[in-house]
């Protein structure tokens, strides 16, 4: 990782997807101290052309940010699109096809409205057997929450505690969509969406973009004195229908992807100093603590209860505000996680800095685990 850039997440009706991408690309090039001409290829993550009403949004962005005739790949992995981009770029470099690759994640979603956004995302559920029953993404995770509460006694209050933490750190992140703190009482009493999940258990629908420049080891050392290395990668998938899953209290894909990444990086969950995990819903963050091995199965509620995911706790998690407070512009999210971990490992996270962070982790889930990418970074 030699360069990072982040656009302001939020309701960005002042701009368009290509301009938003540029807002992230420009600082990433400045950060790396290189020009677009030194980029060998781009990987562009946009989860769906539907949002921007633009088929082939990758081509639009690639051209606009000045990458001209360079090779371009567009990837799609639902909410994990950005991390699919990081893994694709890493693979291109490792295969020797490129030395410097720009990954751009971008999505513009807010203009369609929450009801229509929920509709488009719900169509990523099995459209023959599950979507017709009006299941949505909050609904799917609510089924998991009901089950987690039933099996492990996870409480309504513990769910809200995740949201309180996200907002505490999001308020310190100038790029976050909602930069305001919330009280536990506000979080617990908010409008029901899909019970047991309420408004504050659900991530935001946002516009945003993020960019990261990856380079080969040799090239990275020439570009910067402070490279951040990707030392472990894992990815996995799961059934399209959630009713087919043996368990609804965790994501198998998360566990498998994490196992691969830990093994490749030769680290254990105990070695992780800071993490960005996929908190599309409060229950998703609680399950991520368990699936990634930060705590034992069923003890995710206790983990937040004890403040273990706060700075100063066992594994500070989503201290950039997470999807909940920073926002979740689908394609941008995984790249944004990479940007945050890179900042943390360089010691550039300001008020949100985890002191002395050496090893970071990103965990990015698409849909309800049909895609999952876990990456481990060191400085």
């Amino acid at each position, binding site marked *: 990782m030699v360069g990072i850039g982040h656009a302001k997440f939020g309701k960005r009706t002042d701009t368009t997807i290509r301009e938003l991408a540029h807002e992230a690309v420009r600082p990433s090039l400045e950060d790396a101290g290189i020009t677009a001409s030194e980029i060998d290829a781009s990987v562009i993550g946009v989860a769906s052309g539907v949002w921007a009403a633009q088929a082939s949004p990758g081509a639009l962005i690639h051209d606009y940010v000045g990458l001209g005739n360079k090779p371009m790949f567009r990837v799609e992995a639902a909410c994990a699109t950005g991390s699919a981009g990081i893994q694709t770029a890493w693979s291109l470099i490792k295969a020797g096809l490129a030395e410097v690759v720009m990954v751009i994640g971008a999505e513009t979603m807010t203009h369609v409205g*929450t009801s229509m956004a929920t509709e488009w995302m719900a169509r990523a559920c099995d459209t023959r057997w599950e979507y017709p*029953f009006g299941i949505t993404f909050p609904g799917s995770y609510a089924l998991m929450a009901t089950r987690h509460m039933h099996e492990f006694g996870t409480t309504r209050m513990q769910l809200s505690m995740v949201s309180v933490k996200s907002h505490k750190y999001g308020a310190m992140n100038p790029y976050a969509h909602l930069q305001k703190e919330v009280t536990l009482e506000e979080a617990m009493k908010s409008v029901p969406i899909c019970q047991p999940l309420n408004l504050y258990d659900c991530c935001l629908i946002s516009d945003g973009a993020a960019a990261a420049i990856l380079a080969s080891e040799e090239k990275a050392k020439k570009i910067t004195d402070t490279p951040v290395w990707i030392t472990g990668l894992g990815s996995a998938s799961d059934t399209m229908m959630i009713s087919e899953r043996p368990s609804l209290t965790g994501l198998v894909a998360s566990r498998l992807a994490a196992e691969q990444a830990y093994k490749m990086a030769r680290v254990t969950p105990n070695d992780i100093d800071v993490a960005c995990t996929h908190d599309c819903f409060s229950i998703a963050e609680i399950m991520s603590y368990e699936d990634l091995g930060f705590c034992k199965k069923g003890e995710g509620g206790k983990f937040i209860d004890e403040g273990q995911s706060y700075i100063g706790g066992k594994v500070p998690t989503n201290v950039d505000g997470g999807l909940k407070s920073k926002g979740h512009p689908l394609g941008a999210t995984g790249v944004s996680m990479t940007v945050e971990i890179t900042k943390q490992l360089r010691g550039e996270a300001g008020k949100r800095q985890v002191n002395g962070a050496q090893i970071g982790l990103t965990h990015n889930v698409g849909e309800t685990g049909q895609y999952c990418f876990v990456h481990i970074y060191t400085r």
Partner: protein
Amino acid sequence: MVKFTEALKQGKLMGAKCKKCGEKYLPPRAHCRCGSHEVEWYEAPTRGKLFSYTLVTFPPDSMTKYAPYIVAVAELEDGSRLLAHITGVSPKTLQVGLPVQVVPHQISEDRIAYKFKPEQTTV
């Protein structure tokens, strides 16, 4: 799939079973994940227990007129699971483990689905 809907009208739930590896699929599919395309119909149980549920108060755009509604996953007597609406029960009395049965749900003249309802207790 005609067989599935025809059977459903009679209150029967038909799944597909792989002739090669024996894997059962409910809802049915034409091909098995093992690679075999030789699957046969079997009649699945229609009784089971509530495995999980959610009361949807913020629906996707296309479902606005039906909200609020309850989406549930039930575990049937043979261990297979199905996702559908549940009706005839108050959200407040819902709990994991509630005995339910799968019943046909005629949505319109040419559209049929299935739903759960609490199992009738014969008194």
